[in-house]
């Protein structure tokens, strides 16, 4: 009962956009012939170039979800080992060598970075993933480092060294695992940040083709017709919001669960 209350809302909220995003492309079927823009058409009407909104919604989740999740995962894959490594190395020069360039990236406004990188690189989902990951990576590294520093300074770490444990096992088995709580708290916010960055990028017209089937792009491109045909904006926007609210509720639940377990 308690666990249903804890996990229920998060999972329920999350499952709707996830199912639509992942199963959508199979459900969508053959594209219908185009209609007039913002027409009343089938079910959800048509979008700014006369495509069926329902079909676009089914097609448009995968990129958003995949880009945001992949970018976040990539940022963690690159940032966390870096943060842990710098935290665990006793050598100050190595720490500085690895962390200073990241501070540099932090000092550039992420949006400027986004605009420049997106303009310089060929457009596409992969580019967007890399860019969003690059923007998030320094902060992930910093957070990981801060969390790892505290953990690495604990006597338990020295006890493991005295047991002859390898650096790798200490990093992954102890520091990494102990950081999980901090990283989980960060994860919820960061996925939303990535989602949001993708959405903003398309608002600025970088990264994704402006007619891509993509929820974030849909929200932006169909804005003009919002009063003619609201579904083209409202449905994808709601899906993005449910996705991030669901993610956050879920991660909050996971965090609280772990907190109570220890």
């Amino acid at each position, binding site marked *: 009962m308690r666990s249903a209350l804890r996990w229920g809302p998060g999972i329920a909220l999350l499952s709707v956009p996830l199912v639509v995003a992942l199963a959508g492309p199979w459900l969508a079927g053959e594209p219908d012939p*185009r209609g*007039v*823009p*913002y027409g009343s058409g089938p079910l959800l009407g048509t979008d*700014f*170039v*006369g495509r069926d909104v329902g079909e676009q919604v089914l097609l448009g989740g995968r990129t958003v979800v995949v880009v945001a999740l992949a970018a976040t995962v990539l940022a963690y894959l690159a940032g966390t080992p870096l943060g842990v490594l710098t935290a665990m190395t006793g050598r100050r020069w190595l720490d500085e060598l690895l962390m200073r360039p990241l501070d540099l990236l932090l000092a550039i406004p992420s949006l400027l970075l986004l605009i420049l990188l997106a*303009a310089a690189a060929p*457009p596409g989902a992969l580019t967007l993933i890399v860019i969003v990951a690059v923007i998030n990576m320094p902060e992930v590294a910093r957070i990981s480092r801060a969390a790892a520093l505290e953990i690495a300074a604990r006597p338990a770490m020295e006890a493991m060294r005295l047991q002859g444990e390898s650096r790798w096992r200490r990093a992954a088995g102890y520091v990494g695992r102990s950081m999980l709580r901090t990283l989980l708290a960060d994860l919820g916010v960061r996925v939303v940040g990535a989602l949001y960055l993708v959405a903003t990028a398309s608002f600025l*017209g970088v990264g994704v*083709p*402006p*007619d891509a089937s993509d929820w974030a792009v849909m929200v932006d491109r169909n*804005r*003009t*017709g919002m*009063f*003619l045909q609201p579904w083209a904006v409202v449905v994808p926007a709601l899906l993005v919001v449910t996705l991030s609210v669901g993610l956050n509720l879920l991660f909050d639940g996971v965090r609280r669960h772990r907190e109570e377990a220890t």
Partner: protein
Amino acid sequence: GPGPATGTAATGRPRRGGRLRVAFAGGGAQETLDPHLSNLFVEASRSKALFDKLADYGPDLSVQPRLAERWEPDAALTTWRVTLRQAAFHDGRPVRAADVLYSYARIGDPARAFRARTTLAVIDLARSRAVDDRTVEFALRQPFAEFPNVLAAFGVFIVPEGTEDFTRPVGSGPFVFGSFEPGRSLLLRRNPDYWEGAPHVDELQYLIANEESARVNALLGGQVDYAHDITATTARTYRGNDRLAVTRLTNSGMQAFAMKLDRPPFDDRDLREAMFLLADREQLVDTVLGGAGQTGNDLFGRGYQYYAEEIPQRARDLDRAQWLVRKAGAKGLRIRLDTSAAAGGFVESASVFADQMRQAGLDVRVAVGDKDTYWKDVLDGGSLCCFRSGAMPIESHFSQRLLSTSTTNITKWRRPEFDALYTRAVSLADEKARRDVYAEMQRMQHAEGGYLVWGFADWLVATAPGVGGVVDAPANTLDWARFDKVWLA
């Protein structure tokens, strides 16, 4: 199709007074009041408010006299005598022949890069002279019957002799400079002594709002009286709404796909014809332009002077197109369609057209390029791209884009016989004879040219209730974005 509402807000008789606030997309730091540097629509409109050209285009792109009262060529069409009307700059100095020669020399300066420089290249300025204060004699390098087109060309404004600093510009236009904050606002006052009669409003303020939705919101919120360039969707949204009236500027822009003739696959005439036939022009107009436009016939300048109306409209013939594709051996051929956000509707038109091409058995990939460098990128790169053009005389379209020597010949149409026809046409003093040659040239284009002109877009401007005098004129022509004839009820 479901065209947008067109309501002219002209309510009653013109009334004097008030401040007219007009909203345009702007260029931030890049904005300038130097009329010769005008590039953006807002700059063109501002220049028009502050300055005059010797001539300008009417709604059919025929040339109307402005500062020039009249012009006469000699028999050889190589010397043109232009008589100026009695007009004065805002500081009281009269507009003289010397000012005209200075302005043309400034634009034509080979060391600089003004947009209209190539247009003026036909003039031999060294041999041109001021006959008297109100008469200029232009000497041309070759016979050129269409010389008035030069006088009316984009950006060829007359500035007082010696002017280089345009921070507080002085012109001869209907409005006098007030204050300027680049990227934000330009405030102008009524010029009571304007040669064509003083404007109706006391003040004219240009405001910058890059987002279309922001311009519309500002209009709905009563913060501006005129919003330039709104979408058909917005027009549909507010149809019947009394807070906003829409004026159509019919025939403001040509919409096309440009194929390059000098390289595969479109060096194959059959494939070009297949492209012409597979295009569903109605669908493009309906979806991309939201119905606000007319279909095209692969020719520039529908409704303009010298347009070859007699050439029959192409209709979609998918079967023949498919047959031609097969004949050209292009079935399943991978073709890249370049597009970008450089102009409104490009990406949409590319994605709609890509679908149409696929139906004819072609394999298309839409490539979205950088919007800022698009025009340079597609001039020499790729083989198929989205293209659009603002209003200009058909002759200018030929000379700038279709001659072997044209610098922006995007379709790589290089035909000595076409060049020869052009040379002949512009050396004909007789308009009727010229029309025939132009028609011949257009037939060549229509038959095997590289421009797939699918439509002509109407532009839409929105006005607040009570704004009168906004008329339907293609963008870049005399009456477009012209505010001395507008009044506030």
